[in-house]
């Protein structure tokens, strides 16, 4: 075997490991399934992490690109109030400050009817102001006269990227229909954008340029600008600009708005990453389990090798190398799988961002090298790290003790109190991390992981205690086999408890996330019922599900207001206003009544509830949503909020904090008169109708729909449909969580399968003895299933409280900190039953293969070693 060479192997390092390597390879060939499962476990763990990374990165890059496509080289920008800024400011700047590069921009999202149903950014520019900012229309270039002529003289001329035009069979001269806020806008393609490289192509694919006059007319923004871009490195120049600004216009660095948007989605992305890490944690358990098994199983062999002169270091290297190779294989497989899954995940992530935050158009998935390197390192690293304890074990033990079967068990039993203490300590520190003051999401996740890991460490002790008391019951239920099964689990605790812990962690994650989503959905559903008490709702369609910004046409309002059978009508205007102290724009809803008809719930209220809405209508102050309150860490009671009005900064006292699940970034509610006094905007975004007794909401909606036929395309919904639609958006938002949860379950399942299978296969000699002493095949099947079933049941039982704790943390800490939403925890027995069933099913399924194999075993061969 070692070529008869008795010299210490270290003398011949070149050949020393070759036989060991051959040995390991032979073993893999004989027991392929175990290794396949290990590789799969690593692969799925890595795949999850990679796919979430890919999705996050792609969404981030799409955002970055769409920003860059229109940001150009601007250093600063001027932003106005809800309806943009007055165009005369641009002329004033242009004519009075010489040498200030400034460019007006009018933009919004539109959908091209024959250009794919994705939102496109319609950007209206003044070609003469463009050259310092964006290089798409260079003055002085050949053909620029054509560009100027087409842009200025074609009243509906648009310029789109060549690739998008080709993809949809469009060419210059073709007509196209854009839709915006329910209006159809005829357009004509007058030119094509030719991106310089592939990246620019992706960036420009989602952008349509046109003349600023065209954009104003198409978007109904006559007289207004979305913003003015500036290039001003010189502070003196900025001071001059600042001195000219009307009070409602703010000067901000060009990157500020993008950063604010990025920050808004940061919590969402962190949540996804944490979920993928959770999966990896489960994956690591499984790797540890598999590797430690493969070591434990070979301890006879290792003992012999040590006797033959193989050093502890060589064994250590062998085990580690084996794990590294398997880990690497798994990781590589995981990379491929992850990139593949990422493509689906991107869609879900984009959907959620569109629903909750802002319009995002992701053209392609982007895989960052760092993602792949991370996946590779984490996959292989996790495998190596998990195999470290067994490898150290194999290295340290003397040849003699390696041969002793009971050695490992007795030693790990001695370690049990320490392990339990460590678990307790982890739980304690996890709790402390969660209690940490402030709004640190990372700390919260750290606490969550510490808690989960601590509970996993407690598993052996709990299992042992359970298995010692269980024989009494198990014996009564299943006879001698029952007692044997429970004692068997306790006896080989070092192996069984790892499998149980892995299954417990996986299942508790399922329980926790299920409870969280269930509670969330229940809360939102209650909130919808309480808040949307009006019977019929009217609003223009919106690209971002969470918000409406486009106004209703006055004639639509007039027609709708004449609807018969209406008891009361409430109109609202949705706008974005700058909140300087919060450092970003906040959505504001100006209302002339309460759509909840008093059903709304409040976290805080100043004064009497009875006259709250009267005071709001009278302009005594504003109301803010709970998510704004939590996100901005406001004190209770909230101090007045500073907002940028048309006439400058103004503080608005907070009358109440209301629960709201429609916006993740927070909203402000303001009375109609107070709003119009401070912002020059008398448009209406949505209308709600309370019907008289006995009027059917569905038919009233149908009547309204009919009345408005042929006008602006609006959405008329009865309250029932509105609530259903809202819940649909909610479910869509959580599709990604559910998808990740499913992946975590698969990881757990594979882990448990491989762990239990190895455990059973390892016992073939023991079972051989039992068989030789008269155990029937049927009894052996029963014993196997009893054992795996008991383990599954234990894991399932332990997962219930752990899952509950997890859910509590997710609901009361993580979600509150991420989104600022308070949720009531809704516990349904279904979640626990489902989790227990999953654990049990996984465990029982894992017993099938070993049972089949053991049933076929040759008894004499199995016990020959004795």
């Amino acid at each position, binding site marked *: 075997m070692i070529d008869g060479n008795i010299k210490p192997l270290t003398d011949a390092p070149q050949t020393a490991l070759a036989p060991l390597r051959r040995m390991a390879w032979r073993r893999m060939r004989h027991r392929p399934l175990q290794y396949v499962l290990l590789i799969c476990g690593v692969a799925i763990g890595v795949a999850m992490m990679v796919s979430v990374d890919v999705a996050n990165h792609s969404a981030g890059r799409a955002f970055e690109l769409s920003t860059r496509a229109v940001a150009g080289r601007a250093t600063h920008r001027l932003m106005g109030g809800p309806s943009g800024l007055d165009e005369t400011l641009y*002329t004033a700047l242009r004519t009075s400050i010489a040498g200030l590069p400034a460019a007006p921009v009018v933009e919004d999202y539109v959908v091209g009817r024959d250009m794919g149903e994705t939102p496109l950014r319609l950007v209206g520019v003044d070609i003469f102001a463009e050259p310092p900012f964006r290089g*798409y229309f260079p003055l002085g270039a050949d053909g620029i006269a054509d560009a100027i002529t087409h842009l200025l003289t074609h009243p509906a001329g648009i310029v789109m990227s060549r690739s998008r035009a080709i993809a949809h069979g469009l060419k210059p001269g073709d007509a196209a229909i854009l839709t915006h806020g329910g209006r159809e806008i005829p357009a004509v393609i007058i030119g094509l954008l030719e991106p310089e490289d592939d990246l620019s192509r992706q960036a420009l694919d989602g952008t349509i340029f046109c003349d600023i006059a065209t954009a104003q007319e198409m978007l109904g923004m006559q007289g207004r600008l979305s913003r003015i871009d500036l290039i001003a490195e010189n502070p003196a120049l900025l001071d001059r600009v600042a001195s000219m600004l009307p009070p409602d216009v703010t000067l901000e660095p060009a990157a500020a708005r993008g950063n604010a948007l990025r920050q808004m989605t940061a919590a969402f992305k962190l949540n996804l990453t944490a979920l993928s890490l959770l999966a990896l944690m489960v994956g690591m358990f499984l790797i540890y389990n598999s590797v430690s098994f493969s070591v434990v199983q070979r301890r006879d062999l290792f003992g012999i090798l040590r006797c033959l002169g193989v050093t502890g270091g060589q064994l250590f290297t062998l085990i580690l190398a084996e794990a590294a190779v398997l880990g690497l294989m798994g990781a590589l497989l995981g990379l491929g799988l992850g990139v593949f899954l990422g493509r689906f995940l991107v869609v879900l992530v984009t959907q959620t961002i569109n629903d909750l935050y802002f319009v995002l158009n992701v053209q392609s998935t982007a895989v960052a*090298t760092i993602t792949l390197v991370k996946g590779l390192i984490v996959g292989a690293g996790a495998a190596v790290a998990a195999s470290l304890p067994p490898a150290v074990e194999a290295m340290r033990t003397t040849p003699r003790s390696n041969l002793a079967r009971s050695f490992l068990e007795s030693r790990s039993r001695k370690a049990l109190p320490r392990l339990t203490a460590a678990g307790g300590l982890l739980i304690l520190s996890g709790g402390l991390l969660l209690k940490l003051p402030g709004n640190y999401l990372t700390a919260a996740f750290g606490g969550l992981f510490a808690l989960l890991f601590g509970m996993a460490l407690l598993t052996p002790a709990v299992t042992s205690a359970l298995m010692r008391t269980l024989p009494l019951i198990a014996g009564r239920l299943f006879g001698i086999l029952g007692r044997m099964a429970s004692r068997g689990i306790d006896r080989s605790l070092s192996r069984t408890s790892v499998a149980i812990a892995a299954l417990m962690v996986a299942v508790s994650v399922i329980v926790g996330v299920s409870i969280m989503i269930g509670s969330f959905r229940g809360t939102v559903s209650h909130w919808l019922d309480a808040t949307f008490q009006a019977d019929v709702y009217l609003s223009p369609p919106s690209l971002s599900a969470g918000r409406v910004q486009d106004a209703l046409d006055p004639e639509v309002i007039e027609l709708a207001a004449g609807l018969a059978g209406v008891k009361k009508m409430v109109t609202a205007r949705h706008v974005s206003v700058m909140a300087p102290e919060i450092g970003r724009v906040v959505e504001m809803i100006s209302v002339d009544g309460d759509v909840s008809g008093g059903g709304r719930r409040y976290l805080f209220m100043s004064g009497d509830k009875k006259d709250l809405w009267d005071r709001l209508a009278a302009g005594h102050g504003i109301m803010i949503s709970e998510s704004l309150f939590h996100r901005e860490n406001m004190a209770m009671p909230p101090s007045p909020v500073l907002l940028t009005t048309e006439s400058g900064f103004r503080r608005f006292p907070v009358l109440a904090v209301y629960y709201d699940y429609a916006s993740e970034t927070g909203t402000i509610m303001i009375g109609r008169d107070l709003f119009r006094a401070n912002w020059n905007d008398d448009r209406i975004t949505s209308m709600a109708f309370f019907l008289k007794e006995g009027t059917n909401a569905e038919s009233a909606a149908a009547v309204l729909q009919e009345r408005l036929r042929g006008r602006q395309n609006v959405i008329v919904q009865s309250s029932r449909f509105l609530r259903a639609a809202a819940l649909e958006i909610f479910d869509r938002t959580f599709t990604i969580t559910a998808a990740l949860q499913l992946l975590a379950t698969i990881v757990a399942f594979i882990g448990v399968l491989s762990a239990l299978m190895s455990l059973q296969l390892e016992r073939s000699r023991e079972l051989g003895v039992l068989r030789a002493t008269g155990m029937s095949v049927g009894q052996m099947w029963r014993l196997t299933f009893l054992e795996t079933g008991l383990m599954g049941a234990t894991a399932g039982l332990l997962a219930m409280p752990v899952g509950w704790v997890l859910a509590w943390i997710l609901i009361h800490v993580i979600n509150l900190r991420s989104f600022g939403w308070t949720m009531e925890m809704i516990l349904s027995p279904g979640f626990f039953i489902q989790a227990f069933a999953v654990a049990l099913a996984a465990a029982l399924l894992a017993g099938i293969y070993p049972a089949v194999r053991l049933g076929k075993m040759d008894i004499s061969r199995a016990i020959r070693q004795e």
Partner: protein
Amino acid sequence: MTRLTKSLLFLVFFAAVAIGFLNRAAIFRYLSGDGSGAATRVAGTSVFLPVDDDAAGFARAVEPGAIRFPDDLGPHDDYQTEWWYYTGNLATAQGRRFGFQLTFFRRALSPPDADGESLQNGGGSKATRPSNWRTRQIYLAHFAVSDIDGGRFLHAESFSRGAVGLAGAAADPYAVWLEGWHARSISPGRVALHADSDDAAIDLVLEETLPPVLHGDQGLSPKGPEPGNASYYYSIVRQKTSGTVTAGGRQYAVTGLSWKDHEYSTSALSTGTVGWDWFSLQFDDGTALMFFQIRREDGTLENASSGTFISADGTTRHLEKADWRLEVLEEWKSPESGAVYPVKWRMNIAAIDLDITGGAMMADQEMNVSTTYWEGAAAFTGFRAGQPVTAEGYVEMTGYAETMEGRF
């Protein structure tokens, strides 16, 4: 380290390198400090269908004596092309000489529609309120200061649309402007000029001394043999000028004489013509002279080339192509465009008994902007009616760097 470990490390390294190779660009971006993978600037250009540059539908200059004041001081949007041209020769009390040019060009991108409406209906719907930015008039302006003694020629160009107050012109009170640059009436007969660029500025007040001079046939100035290929053209010459010129960071108080041309037309150079030479001279005896010669490819001059001599009392005399003889004495090759321009001439006009020699006050006064041409201060000395005279003025030469055929 054992061999196995080594080979494993190698494997990991190899895998990393392989991934890196496949994703080179991303790695590079990452190393250059941007993990988002979007460090490179989004860049691109655009292509448009060529515009059918048809002048049909525009008004044309056909009628002698059509110019009316003050109405015709302002813009004529129905004509395709229009310019307000200010040039002047200035000097400080110490005799430091400057020249300036401030020109506003207007160009209509498309002819006015029959109903005069359709352009105003963006968005396709008749109900759409037109944007204030909606216009077919674009303006460009050229500004140059010739710091003769400093040897500097400082020039700049600016574009804008004739809308939302960014650029435009008005008859009464007279004004023409493009963003911060303007010529604006401040009181009857007095106009303020202002322009500034990175390295130069002017702030001048121009005072009329003579009534406007109508060129050609009572203001109708033909540019080619075709009917309608002509412009309405008048000048306000010998305007007393004072104010400041800024060049190279220093401001100078100056006085001198300025010349204004205002010309509007729907005409282009005829086929076979390459450009023109334009002279405007203001003599120290109170007279002034303008003539332009349109050069043809074959080296001959277009018959429509003509000029006007303005005597000290403002009476004018029309000059035909045959009236002058211009001999090039010196040429200068622009290092920037490579074009070769005449910069010294002998000018002989028997009809007004003029024989002078002179040229550019400095050779390099080439406007290197969206159109390359030479426009610069010039000085002549010689005799008129037997008396010694000196003249200062401006010379414009186009079509030396690129043909002007079909343009303006």
